[in-house]
């Protein structure tokens, strides 16, 4: 709920007081680059993708440099292992690799003798029942809220992450939910998104993620407003940035009335 309050405080400060913004120079120290690995294994799909880049100094003005010489191996707890191939700068893929609920997957990445390993277990699938929308009047404006309705599984902790596309363009922002206060209920918490207008085609991709990946994104979300911003804890061992997400997926589309 704190985010509600922050949003409100921000709204107050920005709208009502004579606040002003300006771009300033801040002197920031340099930082040695670190590897950034982002990997996905998705239920119902057979192609899985990993991207590997490097971090940069804050003052850098170029796209993130890619790592093209890594050895990337995806395996499961039954011993099915496949090496991924480089398909584009920094992008590695594996094809024809079916995945199943309850199975644990491991990703091993070897970059010039440095090894990073992460694993995750595929959760039970939760499909989206319906995707609804309503206009939420927020101060002078009204914001279109999206309500992804689904039946939460009782007795286990479920974590959800949403990617939202309006007219095929992804809307930036971290949207995550958990069932701490709704365990086993019909989940219908709204997601507030900016820039969705009447007539737009909106697609919501809901992913069932594990606790570690949820915490990773929770930290990124907290960094946007908290006083103690910090690097999220990666589920990779070996000291790199990024995460490996083993996830379920369900997609719905709606045209905003």
């Amino acid at each position, binding site marked *: *709920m*704190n985010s*509600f*309050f*922050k949003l*409100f*405080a921000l709204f*107050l*400060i920005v*709208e*009502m*007081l*004579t*606040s*002003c*913004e*300006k771009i*300033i120079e*801040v002197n920031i*120290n*340099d*930082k040695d680059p*670190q590897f*950034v690995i*982002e990997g996905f294994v998705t239920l119902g799909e057979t192609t899985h993708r990993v991207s590997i*880049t490097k*971090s*940069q100094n*804050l*003052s*850098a*003005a170029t*796209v*993130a440099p890619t790592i093209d010489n890594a050895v990337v191996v995806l395996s499961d707890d039954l011993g099915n292992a496949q090496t991924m191939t480089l398909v584009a700068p920094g992008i590695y893929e594996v094809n024809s690799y079916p995945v199943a609920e309850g199975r644990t997957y491991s990703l091993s990445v070897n970059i010039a003798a440095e090894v990073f390993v992460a694993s995750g277990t595929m959760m039970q699938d939760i499909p989206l029942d319906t995707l609804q929308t309503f206009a*939420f009047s927020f*101060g*002078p404006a009204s914001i279109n809220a999206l309500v992804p309705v689904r039946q939460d599984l009782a007795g286990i902790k479920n974590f959800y992450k949403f990617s939202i596309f309006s007219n095929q363009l992804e809307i*930036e922002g*971290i949207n995550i939910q958990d069932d701490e*206060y*709704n365990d086993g*209920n*019909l*989940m*219908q*918490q*709204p997601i507030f998104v900016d820039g969705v207008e009447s007539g737009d085609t909106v697609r919501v991709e809901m992913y069932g993620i594990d606790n570690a990946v949820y915490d990773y994104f929770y*930290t990124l979300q*907290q*960094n946007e*407003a*908290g*006083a*103690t*911003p*910090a690097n*999220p*804890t990666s589920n990779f061992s070996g000291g790199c*940035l990024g*995460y490996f997400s083993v996830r379920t997926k369900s997609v719905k589309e709606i045209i905003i009335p």
Partner: protein
Amino acid sequence: MVVTDICPMKKILLAVMLIAAFSSFSQEKFTLSGTVSDSTKGEEIINATIKVKSQNVGVFTNEYGFYSLTLPADTITFVFSALGYNPREVTIELTKNVQLNLKLRNANEKITEIEEVVISAIKQDQQLTDPIMGVERLDPAAIAKIPVLLGEKDIIKTMQLLPGVKSAGEGNAGFYVRGGAADQNLILLDEAPVYNASHLLGFFSTFNSDAIKDAVLYKGNQPANFGGRLSSVMDIKMNEGNNKRYNVSGGIGVISSRLNVEGPIVKDKASFLISGRRTYVDLFLKATEQFKENKLYFYDLNAKVNYRINQKNRVFLSGYFGRDKLGLGNAFGINWGNATGTARWNHIVNDKLFSNTSVIYSSYDYLIAISSEDVSFDIKSSIKDINIKQEFQYFLNTRNKLRFGINAIHHGIIPGQISANASSGINPLKLTTNKSLEAAIFITNDWSVSEKFTISYGLRLSTFTLLGNGKNVYSYTADGDVLDTMVYKNNSFVKTYPILEPRVSMSYLYSKSASVKAAYARNAQYIHLISNTTTTSPTDLWIPSSLNTKPEISDQVSVGWFKNFKENSYELSVETYYKSMQNQIDYRNSANTQANELIEGELLYGIGRAYGVEVMLKKKTGKFTGWLGYTLSRSERKIEGINSNNWYAAKQDRTHDVSLVGIYDITPKLSISALFVFYTGNAVTFPTGKYEVGGTTQYLYTERNGYRMPAYHRMDIGVTWLRKNTAKFESSWNFSLYNVYGRQNAYTINFRQNEDNPNITEAVQTSLFRWIPSVTYNFKFK
């Protein structure tokens, strides 16, 4: 008598009594006692001086205006004086015990009759002789001319202009004392703790200056009768209400108005005071099409009655109630506020022994309500205190004044409670009430060893007990995971912490106009505010000490040099302090501090240190008055799990802090004022690198609080014009301009990607409040 049966507290008590009695001898002695009050309002005067003429023997009135002075039998001339009052001389034949209730005339009142005796030059050298160090006293009348944001004079904002006290941010009523955190200040209103002393996200304090009689800030060296917080005690006392005649006064300002009504219920015996304040930003909002559905206001109400039953007994009832409301149509609303109530009984046991019994209630709560077509739920959280205090002041002789007593507080904290309608899809949650008991026994003696040397020493034994509530009590591993879960029966003792807090403070007057002082104090704090946001938020949560969270302890040593110049019209002081702190709290990376039953798993513990020098030059008399304050300081923490366990700057660490305040009375009716502040920016966490995740740029952090906000500075000016001042009516205008030269001070600095080239990262500074003018009209029907 079996000596071993005497507990340490009793031994100390005995020792103190013996030391105190040491200086008395067997000549026959008598006592002069009574109260000192204001001649027109009948209000008792706090800290008035009663001295034997041309001797350095005397006492101060206590917080209820009572004094007692025991001297060998003689005909003695006494001088009664107080800051802002015309002094009076009274000659008394002290051959028996004498009771004298004396009235002093306010120095600003027109003299309509001839005073019995008027002495022109009076020494105001309390700053030299008072053994207590690091103490600041503010008179609300004296601050009325200092310019303030939106014209709302504010005792806390004026305190922030004193050395060692720092504002928590632009226009913020939160403050830091000597490197301590904002929750380490005990703010008392008529003895009741005020848990959230700010309105409107911190832009106003909860204290309506109209209702305030006196405010004293102890910067860590508080006497033993105070306890419960590490850094400071701000002791605010409400007016009693005029017991001679009715008064209606008030002020109309740009965004708020005030009204104060006071008067006698029974003349000279009972009086009342009601003082209210409300802001009306929301009325302007209603006038706009855009914001007309929104709510945004606060109000507060102070009320007090007192009744003098007879010469020996007097009762007081006082209360405060304040509330903030913010709302967006019907969809979202939050309201929060404090309520306090104090019932007191003053009893003069005999002419040397003064007793006060207080029963105090204090609460703070917030409520967030969210509703839309399908979903509606609310979140509540509160802290409620019941507090009982019995205190005695024993005016043993002219050299010793003892104060001792006991205090017990029951804290009840509801960390968070969610209620929701059935269709909302949200399960109701009730975190159980945390119950705890804080108790203390204390004794302190002010001892004038000689004319030059005074010492105030005391001891406080405080204990804190976490009580069981029939629900889970957790203990945690070093990683913040639950180690063990236990259930304790309702009101059973889960854990008790006893802490002995010695306090000593002394002053040596080495010349007529200069003194040196030294002090040591230990303070303990048992409840802690959990706040993981950049600014204060009404949803910040108090937690009690527990199996995991230990009481915070501080030890502060300070020494100081005090010098008066030019007939005491200038005061110069230099104080330096070093404070070490134990069991300080910080947060794990990205801690979840909201409605979290396992909140203690998000906390990290460590030690802290703060040190600095405070310089203050004050001009107290003449057409031009004001002060220059400068603080050079450090405040650091060392916490397991943060910055590789190295020392790092606390958020409130500011190297330099300067404030300059000047008031010039052009004519008795017209005065101008100005203030200037400058301080080093707070320690802040900035990213040092960036990387791509999920298609967006994220920032890479290396250390907490490793960077600095830009330096802050600002100048405000004000004009006060006393328009009418007759026997029946008084009116004045107050104009002020905040941030005269429109400096864009950084409120926040955020990082974002350039819109045109997302590969470029920009630092964006947000600032508030440039050139805020205000006008206030004040009136008073007498």
